[in-house]
């Protein structure tokens, strides 16, 4: 045992040392180093071709690009000659490149001028930067140029010039910003993220117009080259948190990053826990407020969902609506939510427990009603509950998958089968139908879908425990779940903060939604150093008025 502990400790120390080293080195450098190493290893065989590709001659380079982009239908090689006799090639992917802009701002000026010497052309383009194009830059490695083409940029090659111009006219169709489909609010903003990361970042920047909002960009996915952006407030967000997030995502090395969940599962503390330790949202206002609280947001290209870390179970119980509604109503609704959290979690198991173990607990008249309803049911209460709960889960799952046009039919059939027919046929009791439907509704009251889902799934083992040990079993199950939740951490923040460990100031936002003029401080777990959110006495005008009177 002691040896094991020693080893563990040593490992921890090592890890910490590694941490420090990593923090000292720039993370960005490390990433590029790694990429370079890999490319070198892979492209040993291609080295020769590479040297051809970086030669100033146009023909072999063009050959190289054509070889690489063989059987790629949408690539366009536009060859033209600038007077006198400078041959050039514009390479781009049609459909991702705004050719009209290129025609107006590149081809028109170039073809309208006469360059007698080659130096004149290079000076015009590279030294004096006289093209009417912003964000114009050049690359001299053919591989980089190829990557730029695949990202939708245009590449301009010149005879006798190893540098290649990159035209920033990537233009592709994106979905327009629509109302948040899954996190609707009554009073708050309607906007939701879309798939394009540029638009998503602009949605954040529009809300936080501060140079302190940092957006660090990384690229992941060997084939997808997906852009991933870490967004945080410098000075509010803990440095250690940013380092930790950087460190964890730096381990990601995969052929394709297609959604934020890939990143989520890679960097989460305990992926096998039923509780997810990273929050996700599709709302830019939620991300902005989290960033302002000192959290880190991770945006992934092609995903309309942003990740937020760290998170606690209580922040998953908060809806953005809470902060837009009147705080009295929001507080009351929050209590209803907590109540239904337990209902969604415990009601079926509680019913099973008291009806099979503790019938003495039920008032006599209720007992007679329940017992007479159960009279015709041939199954034990546990089995009955399982049948109903599983068919409800099936119905829920089906309603997500079913095409909208036939969804109504299925829901009618489901309601008829589960609700009426099953009771009439005496397969299940009416009491069980009530319990299952209340539980079903309750599980959707939890604002965070994944938290609701984890409670819905943990219901089943609890039902088993209730069916075998009664309330004693429920108590044991609750105890296990509670200790597990106590053990969880999300990026160093205990999952049950601010209840365990308790923190009175941050608890302000747990049991009640404090009015905005009282939320003077940020939650301590995310931003311990810079906690002042607003000047005290936000309602100073009132005091002033009273003094005058």
């Amino acid at each position, binding site marked *: 045992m002691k040896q094991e502990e020693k080893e563990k400790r040593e490992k921890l120390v090592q890890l910490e040392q590694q941490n420090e080293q990593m923090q000292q080195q720039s993370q960005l450098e490390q990433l590029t180093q790694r990429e370079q190493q890999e490319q070198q290893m892979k492209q040993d065989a291609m080295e020769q071709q590479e040297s051809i590709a970086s030669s100033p001659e146009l023909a072999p380079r063009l050959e190289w690009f054509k070889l690489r982009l063989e059987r790629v239908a949408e690539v366009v090689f536009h060859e033209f000659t600038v007077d006198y006799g400078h041959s050039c090639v514009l390479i781009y992917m049609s459909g991702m490149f705004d050719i009209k802009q290129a025609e107006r701002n590149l081809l028109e000026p170039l073809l309208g001028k006469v360059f007698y010497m080659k130096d004149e052309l290079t000076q015009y383009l590279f030294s004096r930067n006289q093209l009417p194009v912003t964000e114009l830059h050049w690359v001299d490695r053919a591989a980089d140029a190829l990557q730029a083409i695949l990202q939708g940029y245009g590449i301009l090659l010149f005879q006798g010039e190893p540098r290649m111009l990159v035209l920033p006219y990537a233009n592709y169709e994106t979905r327009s910003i629509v109302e948040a489909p899954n996190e609707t609010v009554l009073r708050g903003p309607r906007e939701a993220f879309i798939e394009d990361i540029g638009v998503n970042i602009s949605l954040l920047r529009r809300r936080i117009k501060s140079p302190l909002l940092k957006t660090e960009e990384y690229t992941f996915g060997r084939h997808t080259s997906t852009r991933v952006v870490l967004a945080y407030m410098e000075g509010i967000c803990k440095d250690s948190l940013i380092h930790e997030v950087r460190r964890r995502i730096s381990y990601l090395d995969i052929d394709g990053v297609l959604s934020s969940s890939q990143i989520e599962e890679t960097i989460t503390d305990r992926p096998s826990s039923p509780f997810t330790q990273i929050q996700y949202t599709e709302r830019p206002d939620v991300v902005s407020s989290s960033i302002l609280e000192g959290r880190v947001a991770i945006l992934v290209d092609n995903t309309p969902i942003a990740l937020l870390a760290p998170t606690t179970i209580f922040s998953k119980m908060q809806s953005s609506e809470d902060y837009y509604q009147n705080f009295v109503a929001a507080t009351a609704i929050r209590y209803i939510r907590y109540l239904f959290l337990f209902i969604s979690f415990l009601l079926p198991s509680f019913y099973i427990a008291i009806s099979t173990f503790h*019938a*003495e607990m039920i008032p006599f008249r209720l007992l007679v009603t329940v*017992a007479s309803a159960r009279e*015709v049911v041939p199954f*034990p209460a546990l089995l009955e509950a399982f049948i109903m709960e599983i068919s409800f889960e099936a119905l829920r799952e089906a309603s997500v998958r079913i095409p909208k046009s036939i969804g109504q039919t299925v829901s009618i059939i489901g309601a008829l089968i589960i609700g009426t027919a099953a*009771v*009439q046929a005496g397969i299940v009791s009416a009491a069980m139908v009530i319990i299952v439907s209340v539980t079903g509704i309750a599980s959707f009251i939890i604002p965070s879908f994944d938290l609701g889902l984890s409670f819905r799934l943990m219901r089943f083992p609890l039902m088993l425990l209730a069916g075998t040990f009664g309330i004693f*079993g429920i108590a044991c199950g609750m105890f296990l779940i509670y200790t597990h939740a106590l053990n969880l951490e999300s990026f160093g923040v205990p999952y049950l903060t601010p209840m365990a460990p308790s923190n009175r100031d941050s608890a302000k936002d747990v049991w009640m939604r404090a009015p905005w003029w009282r939320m003077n401080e940020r939650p301590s777990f995310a931003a311990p150093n810079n906690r002042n959110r607003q000047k005290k006495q936000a309602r100073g005008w009132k005091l002033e008025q009273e003094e005058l009177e």
Partner: protein
Amino acid sequence: MRKLTISLLLLMMLTGCWSSEELNDQAFIGVLIIDRNDDGIEVTFGVPLTTNLASGETSGSASGGEVFGYFSRTAPTLEEAMQKVQGDLSRRANIGQNRNIVVGRRFAEEGITPVLELAARNPNIRMNTNMFLVDGYAKDEVAKATVTSERFFISLLNKYVEHRTALQTTIKDFMLSKASGGDGLLPIINFSDNTEGAMVGKSSTVGTGGAAIIKKGKLVEPILTPDQTSAAQSIRNQLGNYFFSIESPTENGWIGLYSTSVDVKTKIVKKENKYHIVIKPTSEVEAIGNNSTMNFAIYEDVKKLEDSIDQFSDQLHADTMHVIQQTGADVFHFDRYMMVKYPQDWRKIKDHWREYYRDQLAIDIDSDIRIRRKGSTVRSFKSQFIEHNEGD
């Protein structure tokens, strides 16, 4: 994960005699009726017949039958009789829900101690099970009674207690103290014929009656009248709504009064080497009728009326206490007051407490009853409206 598995496996070892039982495999005893006849003790389980109660959606079920059934067997002892009834039932009898024990007169006369013994030992029987007495053979009376205003017979009993219509006596009340153990009052359930009672016109309906005095677990004479039972309820702080009428203090005639609740404080004091139990009922009453000439606007008259109400209350309580004290049954367990307040003296008399209680303990009643609401008319309806008009 391994830890979780191990702890779940450990759970299995904790089970013991713990096993689940479906609701429809149990018969929930709603009332336990105990009688004595020449062959021994007859135990009757009153059980709701859930099969007949099942909502009528299932075709083919025998709906419309009896909703409450009585199963009874006779045996020399209570336990044997219970075992025999269980033998007749197809489901396991669950006594955990039972809140009512009804005993027949003969059983009470020979002693209710077997019931107390059973309750003291069996954890499934609630200590706050209500006890009732039927002046006759309880099983026959209860079984033939028609219940119209409630679903089950037992709901009636529960409602009587809940609404404080009947005196509430639980098993625990018999076990409150050692010196007066087994003493108590048993409320009587009446079964009346069709001319008078809870539901006129039905063959045999249920109602509340007086109360029987139990001394050392055995019924002793006399039986308290309904009025005396109300006084006893009041001493036990259980009296709810109470209607009564008082002779008018000014002239011949009656004044109807209604008391919403009576608050009683009891204490023990020592005066001139004698112990006095002081019972102080305080209450506020409302005037609901007046057929005398009394005018409620006159303060002196109201004061007089209040005095006579106090007198009435004192008299009723004193009479009741006198009747009970005569029997030597300390049904209110006054010994506990003595034990707490005068522990030294208590030790001397505790062995012959019942005799001391019967012969020497003085009981003082000090009612304080006020008229809270006199009604909208200060004089009687007759004198204010009818006779006034005649005068014109």
